């Protein structure tokens, strides 16, 4: 059974596969996101409490979810590469990091914009935004550690280990920030949790989640090709792949 998996995970087949998949994934993502945006912004009813400001959720929630999902994927891919020495894992981890970091930044921006009408300021150390900010620091740490080594193979392994340590700490950070927030601010700040979602609100959100997810995998495939090439430059299969 394992040989099937090893053949799939071999760099040339991953390079070819991701090349074929990327355009379809990105096209599907574009349709879903277009539909989700139009439906969410124009047709879904406003929230009874926050009015139309609530529509920010259609971009904020999917990117917040992607920011954490990308880190998890990076840690798991790194762990697989470290433990079973499957080199492609490092390429996946190196490809996922910048995408995850960009969505973390997007979550921070859209989150603070969403909070402005409620808090009166862009940044009010809201527990979820603070955890997202720390997640951005974690991304930055992993990416700069990977670059810091001359030998790329060692940089990959060091970054993989740091990602694993980071992923163990993410729930701890989330818990401690929430605990810290409830300690000082108590319940005074209106928590903008998930407002009650009627069906017509929920559909565009799910569509946006699917769209963002497909987009993420699509971009990951494109970046993966670059990372695989960087790591396999001298392998024989690269000759034909590059010649076309």
């Amino acid at each position, binding site marked *: 059974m394992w040989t099937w998996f090893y053949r799939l995970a071999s760099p040339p087949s991953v390079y070819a596969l991701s090349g074929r998949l990327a355009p379809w994934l990105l096209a599907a993502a574009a349709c879903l996101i277009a539909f989700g945006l139009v439906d969410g912004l124009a047709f879904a009813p406003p929230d009874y409490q926050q009015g*139309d*400001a609530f529509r920010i959720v259609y971009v904020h929630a999917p990117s917040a979810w992607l920011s954490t999902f990308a880190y998890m994927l990076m840690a798991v891919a790194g762990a697989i590469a470290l433990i079973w020495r499957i080199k492609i894992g490092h390429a996946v981890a190196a490809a996922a990091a910048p995408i995850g970091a960009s969505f973390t930044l997007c979550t921070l921006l859209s989150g603070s*914009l969403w909070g402005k*009408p409620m808090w009166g300021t862009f940044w009010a150390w809201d527990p979820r935004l603070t955890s997202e900010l720390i997640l951005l620091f974690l991304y930055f740490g992993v990416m700069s550690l990977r670059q810091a080594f001359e030998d790329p193979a060692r940089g990959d392994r060091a970054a993989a280990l740091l990602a694993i340590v980071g992923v163990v700490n993410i729930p701890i950070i989330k818990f401690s920030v929430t605990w810290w927030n409830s300690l000082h601010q108590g319940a005074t700040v209106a928590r903008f949790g998930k407002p009650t979602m009627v069906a017509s609100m929920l559909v565009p959100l799910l569509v946006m989640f699917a769209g963002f997810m497909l987009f993420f995998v699509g971009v990951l495939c*494109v*970046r993966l*090709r670059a990372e695989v*090439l*960087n790591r396999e430059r001298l392998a024989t299969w690269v000759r034909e792949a590059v010649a076309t």
Partner: protein
Amino acid sequence: MTSGFLAMGGYAGYVWPCIGFSLATLAWNLWSAQRASRAALERARRSIAMADA
């Protein structure tokens, strides 16, 4: 109808920039992934050329 839609119930100043940021993030990801894969192809060709020389 469109002016109401654009006004976003008075929150236009917050909703539209958010949409802008998100689309910018998507665009940046596409652009930088493309750039990275082009650069990788270039570097691969160069090191193969060097290996052959």
